[in-house]
C-alpha cells in the first residue's frame, strides 16, 4: 500500500534513473516451503528410525536371484503386451475410421468389450479358458481339423497374462491412435491422395508419422501403466516381480521390506522409461519445432533480460515497500 501511495505522490516529471524496481514478494511460497520441509523431515525420520522397515532385509533381497528373475519377467510382459497393444491399437483405430461400415462396427465393438470389462476378470478368463473350450484346433470352420491341442496345456500362465494384458491394452491404444490420426489435418491426407497415393500409402507415409507426435506421450503413459498392471497377474500365479516378492514374504513374513523391494524396482524402471520417452518424442518432433523453437528461445532470453529487476539500491527498494 505504501509503495502504491508513493508512486501516486511522485511527480510525473521525476527523472527516470532514480526509480527502483521492487521484485514481487511471495510469502505464500515460503509458507509452502516450510510445510513441505516439515513433512519431508517426518518422512525421512520414519524411513530412518522405524526398524520394521528392515532396510537390511531390503538390501539383502533387492538383487537376489528370484527378484531379478521377477524383474526380467515383468519387463518381458510389459514389452510384449505393449507391442501387442500397439499393433492391435493401430489396426482397431484404422478399422474404426474405415469407410467399410462392418469393419468400423466390429472395431468399435472390440474397444467397447475390452474397455468395458475389468482387466482382472479378463486375466482370470484367459487363465480358465479351458473351462469354456476344452480343445483349441486349427482347421476349416465346421470342417476337418489339421492340428488340435488341449486348452489346459496350451494356456500357460504366461500366455494367459500376455493375452489378457495385450488384448486389453489394444482397446486403450486404439483410442489413443485414433485421436492421433484425427489430429492430422485433412489437407495432409488430400495432399497425399493428390500425388497418387492409395489410402494405405497415405496412412503409412503421411498420416501415421505425423500422428505419432500426438500418440507417443500417452503411449509412454500407457507403458508406465502397463509396467504396474503386470503385477495383476499375481492372481494367475505367473512369477513376475510382485509375485516373486510375495512368494518370499509368504515364507519369511518380511512383508513390508519385500514390498519396498518391488516398489524400488518399479520406480527405477519407470525412471528409465521416462527418459526413453523423452528421446522418442524428440525424434517424432522433427520438422515441427526448429523454427518455432528458435524464436521461442530468443523470446525467452529477451523476456528474461527485460524482467530482471534493476540491481542497484536494494535498500531503498526495501524501505519503499515497508
Amino acid at each position, binding site marked *: 500500500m505504501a509503495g502504491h501511495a508513493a508512486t501516486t505522490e511522485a511527480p510525473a516529471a521525476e527523472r527516470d534513473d532514480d526509480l527502483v524496481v521492487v521484485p514481487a514478494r511471495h510469502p505464500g511460497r515460503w509458507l509452502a516451503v516450510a510445510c513441505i520441509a516439515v513433512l519431508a523431515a517426518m518422512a525421512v525420520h520414519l524411513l530412518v528410525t522405524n526398524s520394521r522397515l528392515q532396510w537390511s532385509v531390503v538390501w539383502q533381497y533387492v538383487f537376489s536371484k528370484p527378484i531379478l528373475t521377477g524383474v526380467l519377467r515383468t519387463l518381458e510382459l510389459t514389452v510384449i503386451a505393449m507391442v501387442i497393444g500397439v499393433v492391435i491399437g493401430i489396426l482397431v483405430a484404422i478399422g474404426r475410421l474405415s469407410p467399410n461400415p462392418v469393419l468400423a462396427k466390429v472395431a468399435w465393438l472390440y474397444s467397447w468389450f475390452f474397455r468395458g470389462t475389468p482387466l482382472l476378470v479378463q486375466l482370470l478368463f484367459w487363465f480358465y479358458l479351458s473351462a469354456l473350450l476344452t480343445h483349441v484346433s486349427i482347421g476349416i470352420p465346421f470342417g476337418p481339423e489339421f492340428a488340435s491341442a488341449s486348452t489346459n496345456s496350451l494356456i500357460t500362465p504366461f500366455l494367459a497374462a500376455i493375452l489378457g494384458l495385450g488384448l486389453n491394452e489394444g482397446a486403450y491404444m486404439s483410442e489413443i491412435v485414433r485421436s492421433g490420426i484425427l489430429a492430422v*489435418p485433412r*489437407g*495432409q491426407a*488430400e*495432399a*497425399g*491422395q*493428390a*500425388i*497418387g*497415393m*492409395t*489410402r494405405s*500409402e497415405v496412412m503409412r*507415409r*503421411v498420416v501415421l*508419422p*505425423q500422428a505419432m507426435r500426438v500418440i507417443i506421450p500417452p503411449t509412454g503413459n500407457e507403458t508406465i501403466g502397463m509396467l504396474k498392471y503386470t503385477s495383476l497377474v499375481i492372481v494367475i500365479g505367473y512369477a513376475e516381480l510382485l509375485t516373486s516378492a510375495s512368494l518370499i514374504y509368504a515364507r519369511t513374513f518380511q512383508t513390508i521390506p519385500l514390498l519396498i523391494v518391488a516398489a524400488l524396482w518399479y520406480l527405477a524402471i519407470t525412471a528409465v522409461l521416462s527418459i526413453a520417452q523423452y528421446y522418442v518424442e524428440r525424434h*517424432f518432433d*522433427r*520438422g*515441427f*519445432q*526448429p*523454427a*518455432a523453437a528458435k524464436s521461442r528461445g530468443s523470446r525467452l532470453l529477451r523476456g528474461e533480460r527485460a524482467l530482471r529487476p534493476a540491481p542497484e539500491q536494494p535498500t531503498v527498494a526495501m524501505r519503499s515497500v515497508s
Partner: protein
Amino acid sequence: MFEARDIHKSFGHVEVLRGVSMTVRRGEVACLLGPSGSGKSTFLRCINHLEKFDAGRMWVDGELVGYRQSGRRLHELHDREIAQRRSRIGMVFQQFNLFPHRTALQNVMEGPVVVKRAKPRELMEEAHQLLRRVGLADKAHHYPSQLSGGQQQRVAIARALAMHPALMLFDEPTSALDPELVGEVLDVMRDLAAGGMTMIVVTHEIGFAREVADVAHFMADGVLVESGLPAEVLGNPQHERTRNFLSKVLA
C-alpha cells in the same frame, strides 16, 4: 484434354454445382473466377476425385473421371484405380499442405518414391532440378516450418510437377499468402504456362487471369455464368453477376 459435361453435385440439400460444362484443350490455361461459395473449388476437387459428383461426365486425357467404361456399363473405380488416375493430375492447394515431417527435397521426392516406386538415389538429380526451377535450390534441406508461405507453395508446385502430370489444378494458390509473397508464386505459374502445361486455376488474381489465361470462366451459384477470352470476360463482362463481382474485386 479435359471435358466436363453437365456436372451436378450436392452437399446434403445444398446443390453446389448445377450443371457445369467446360472444355480445356491441351496446353491451355483456364482460369475459374467467382465469388466464394460459388462452387469453383468443389468443381476442381471433382476433377481429382477428392469429391464425388452426383451426375454428369468428366474426361481427363480421354479417360472418364470416377468410372471405368466397359460396353454399356460404368464401373465405379476402386481406391487403387483412383490413385492411379490422380497420379497424372497435379494439384496445388490453398493451404500448401506440404508434409511437415519431411524436408523440401523429401516432399518433392515423396510422390515418385511411394507411387512410382522410383529409387531415391536416381530421383535426387531431378528433384534438385525441380527445386531450382521454382527458385528454391538452396532450400532443399529445409523443413516446411522453416520456409515462408510463398516458398512453401513453390515447393508444393515442385512436388506436383515431380509426378509429370498431364494436367495441373490450382485451388486458390495465392489466397493464403501475404500480399508481398503472391508475386513469386504467380511467376512460377506463369513459367509453367509458358512451358505448355495444361492448367485449370481457381483464383482471385484478376491480373494473372487477364495476362496468362487462354480462357476465363466466371462461376456463380454453381453454374458457369460467362466464359470466353479473358480480355472479353474481364474487360467487357456481359452478365450482371460478373460485373458485380469484378467491381468488388477490382475496387
